[in-house]
């Protein structure tokens, strides 16, 4: 059975959970062989085992995205075990929910290390191999935080950086036949948000501020990533695809929305 990504080799960072995991699983269902990179050994193996159990090819690679030697070795191993690398999904990320004066320089550096330097290192390792293979596709998970500000200084800075580096590289990599795009998720129900979304007031306010009326699912982002690495998006590069249930497309009034939008209808 010929599939959209038949036997293409992909490496997904943060593949042990959340958006990375959902993307690894979906790319596999579309025919790809997936290297699942995560710092959590059990989680990385969990995703690769699930792919293998479904009849797909996968390998688990454990490491810290911020360690250059580990990243280089991971990409080399992915090629050795699965074949020439054609797809990279940068999805590993952390958040420190603190504002400027609460954020220590150490916390700032760690968030930048994972969310920005980690992406940079995987790009540096993957691009020469994609070029050698005749081209490739890269998807970078950014955030609506990079567009709007989201309250967390280090996280927002890294996601703005992801948007910027994606645009920078689109023109730089186009002659190498490599496309690169980002996705800006809204609030997605993953481990990254587990603590805040467990707070009922925050959870309800989040849903109320999302026109589509629900939290995002990791699969929503995985579907967007699949589109951006598939031939269907062959003329799409340097763009950011917002997948947020309409959250930043408009000013949203939460529970007041209905009465506000029909104010003149009810007030005469």
């Amino acid at each position, binding site marked *: *059975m010929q599939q959209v990504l038949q036997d293409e080799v992909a490496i997904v960072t943060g593949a042990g959970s959340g958006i990375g995991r959902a993307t690894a699983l979906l790319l596999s269902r579309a025919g790809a062989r997936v290297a699942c990179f995560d710092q959590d050994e059990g989680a990385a193996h969990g995703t690769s085992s699930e792919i293998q159990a479904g009849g797909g090819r996968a390998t688990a690679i454990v490491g810290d995205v911020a360690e250059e030697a580990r990243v280089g070795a991971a990409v080399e191993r992915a090629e050795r075990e699965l074949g020439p690398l054609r797809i990279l999904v940068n999805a590993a990320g952390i958040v420190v929910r603190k504002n400027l004066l609460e954020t220590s320089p150490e916390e700032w550096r760690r968030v930048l290390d994972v969310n920005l330097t980690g992406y940079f290192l995987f790009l540096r390792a993957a691009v020469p191999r994609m070029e050698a293979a005749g081209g490739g596709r890269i998807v970078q998970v950014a955030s609506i935080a990079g567009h709007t500000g989201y309250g967390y200084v280090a996280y927002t800075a890294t996601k703005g950086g992801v*948007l910027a580096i994606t645009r920078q590289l689109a023109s730089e990599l186009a002659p190498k036949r490599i496309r690169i795009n980002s996705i800006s998720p*809204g609030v997605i129900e993953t481990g990254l948000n587990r603590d805040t979304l467990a707070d009922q007031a925050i959870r309800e306010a989040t849903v109320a501020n999302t026109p589509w009326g629900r939290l995002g699912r990791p699969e*929503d982002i995985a*579907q967007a990533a699949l589109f951006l690495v598939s*031939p269907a998006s062959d003329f799409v590069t340097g*763009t950011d695809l917002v997948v*947020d249930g309409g959250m930043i497309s408009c000013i949203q009034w939460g529970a007041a*929305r209905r009465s506000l939008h029909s104010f003149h209808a009810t007030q005469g």
Partner: protein
Amino acid sequence: MSAKGTPPPGRAPALEGRIAVVTGAARGIGRATAVALAGEGAEVVGMDVLDLRETVDEVRAAGGRARAVPVDVSDREAVQRAFAAAVPGGRLDILVTAAGVYGSTTGIDGLDQAELEAVLAVNLKGTLWCVQAALPMMRGHGGAIVCIGSVAGRVGGVLAGPHYVASKGAVHALVKWVAKTQAAHGVRANAVAPGAVETEMIRGKGYTPDYCPMGRLGRPEDVAQAALFLASPASDYVTGTVLDVNGGYFMGS
């Protein structure tokens, strides 16, 4: 999501059982979108002022379902009648507004009222009238609206005239209004903003393949695949956004 507009063997069509209206379906982006949606199992109603026979024939030859409903989208009454005729059960799942005109490239000094109104009539009013007609047929069970905008509406254009640029910017704004107000009714709305695409619209107007980093003009199928993604369940959490399909020509947000 194959480039040929048919799902790979073994995968279920994504839009089986859905009814889609595609405006501007006689040629270019509209035609390619009609073919792509039908390739995923949708029953496509093509609308245009031009002859739709080639589009219908192309869809049917590939084993898909398509019908032609001639209409001038700038005529509100005609649009209302066309939608009523196109969707007898009153249930519509997908609307793609691809009808558009380019107008002159003479700049603003020589722009007269007739020229301005001719462009706004199709690109803005035509889009709005079709959205107006489609929404009552979508509310409740849900639907997806995809409006074809333009990179010109994002960056002010280069070769396009001010009236075209303004009309496409308006389309992007309209999409956000629809997304915001209709989400509670289960209707999503997004735009695709193509760069220069090889269609009749831009032929002979000086666009060359080196205009973007990818080094080629867009193809109608590139835009059709983006519209297909935004019309399909794969984009169920995407609303109010503008998806750029321009080979890296413009990368703003």
